[in-house]
């Protein structure tokens, strides 16, 4: 069953077109990675899917329902959450308060406490630093909180924008092993990542984005072939 279907999606800022006819679809429980150089529209794609940017044309379907052009608050209630680049945690609020805000977008309020326990198990920082001001957490802890807060909304599809940005290597490894657990639990993941090798390990497909277009698609096996990945990334053709 297709959980997320993007068809001929065009998006941008004012008169500037950033995304051009983006088309792909994902099945439930899949993980896709989106890689590409800076400024090619990776973040714009995630923000357009999440409703933060209104698309110029095209279709975005979540579980078969059209969500294109809807408000972000409606989209998150439909089951799609975004962990934005830079985390955007509420630094003035405590860790606990940040998580409580995530409950706003949760459709099933009755299971809220189970959801909190689930994310606390994934990210122990939530219990150990629960009363600490979120702005005082380290970068890695903030990223864990941002993901936990998004998970609290009970997303069927979780979008992550550069989750490794600014993190130390050991923190990154820990973070991606947690993402793997989230994926194994059945959440569909769409990850934008500059460091392509981080997502190739467990992504079902890698989309190479350049100049606003999906220039190449690599399956799991091809994506783990460093040469093929490099060629696709730099536009030399994946199969050369």
């Amino acid at each position, binding site marked *: 069953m297709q959980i997320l279907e993007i068809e001929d999606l065009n998006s941008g800022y004012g008169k500037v077109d950033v995304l051009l006819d983006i088309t792909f679809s994902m099945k439930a429980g899949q993980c896709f990675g989106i890689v590409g150089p800076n400024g090619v529209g990776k973040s714009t794609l995630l923000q357009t899917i*999440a*409703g*933060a940017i209104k698309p110029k044309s095209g279709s975005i379907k979540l579980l078969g329902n059209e969500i294109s052009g809807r*408000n*972000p*608050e409606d989209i*998150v*209630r439909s089951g799609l*959450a*975004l962990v*934005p680049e830079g985390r*955007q*945690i*509420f*630094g*003035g*609020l*405590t860790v*606990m*308060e940040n*998580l*409580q*805000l*995530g*409950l*706003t*977008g*949760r459709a099933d309020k009755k299971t*809220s*406490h*189970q*959801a*909190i*326990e689930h994310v*606390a198990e994934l990210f122990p920082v939530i*219990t150990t630093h*629960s*009363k600490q001001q979120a702005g005082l957490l380290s970068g890695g802890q903030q990223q864990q909180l941002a993901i936990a*807060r*998004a998970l609290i*909304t009970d997303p069927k599809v979780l979008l992550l924008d550069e989750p490794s940005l600014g993190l130390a290597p050991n923190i990154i490894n820990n973070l991606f092993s947690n993402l793997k657990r989230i994926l194994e639990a059945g959440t569909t993941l769409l990850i934008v990542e500059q460091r392509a090798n981080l997502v190739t390990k467990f992504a079902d497909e890698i989309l190479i984005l350049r100049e606003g277009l999906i220039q190449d698609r690599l399956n799991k096996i091809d994506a783990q072939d460093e040469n093929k990945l490099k060629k696709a990334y730099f536009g030399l053709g994946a199969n050369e």
Partner: protein
Amino acid sequence: MFAKSWVKGLTRFSFTEIFIPLIIVAGSSLWLSGRSTSLLLFIKFTLCYLMMVLSLQVFVGNSGVLSFGHGSFAMVGAFVSGLATAPLVIKQHAMSLSNLWQPLVDFKLNLGMSLLASAIAGGVFAALTGGFLMRLNGLAAGIATFALLGITYNILFNNNHIGPSNQALPGVSQFSSLTLPLVLVLLAMVLVYFYNLSRLGRTLRATREDNMASRGLGINIVRVRWMSFMFSGLLAGLAGAMYAHVGGAVQVQDYYLGFTFFTLAMLIVGGSASLWGAVLGTIVVSGVSQILLMWEQSTPVLGVTIHLPIGTRAIVIAGMLVVILLWRPNGISNGNEFKLPNFLSKIKVS
């Protein structure tokens, strides 16, 4: 188990954060008011200002959206309470009320009910106007609330069918003692403190920190702001009514630019992000203002007389505002609730 308490819990509740400000407001009000009748009047007016600053803290402090429009709700509250408690003979015979709409002439409530009616009127007016205003952000929102203040003022100032227009409405029943205004303010402080801790208050603070991230968590910013605006309108309506019942008259000019500037200055000087900031700002600005006013009138303060030119008070308060914004933008409280000094906390623990 911990997760269940997280879902519902008032995450930051601290007894001292609410209890000490209550003690300070109640204690200082009772102590000062017993010293002279002029101080009693000063305390009563200060309590009205504190109610208004609490109203501003609920909305401005939590949402980060500057509102110049809360004077409108105070005006409406004052008019409702004033017209409800002014004696019939005044409403029938005062020159300023000769064109008053007949149902308003017949409108009569006791003091308690009139205060309730004024709070409801302020809340309803805020709810009606907030439906449009809360869709705006930043500078546009501030300007729109200023427009609301101007519109309300001009309607009330120029229309003698719904009030005394540019004249004063005399004979408004006055608070016979400090008890009622003090109890109302203490109750409002408790409400505002718990509002700030509540899910709604927390959500509004999140929208202040990051608009887009809030929406990404499913928060409907317009609705959250609107609910807060309504609650703060209710408190502003009550503040306006209290002001009328302290002065014994209603005059729309009393709630316009000077009132707006003065109460916003109190909020900013104290720190808009906390109840303690609202209390501190009101105490500091009211105190400084009263001392300067007395010196402008060449009246001694604690035996000291300084002859100051008229207008010094406004200049000094504006200067305080600039100094605070430059060197302590989160106000004297730094945006924090009341905390015991470290050495006292240690004594408490040991």
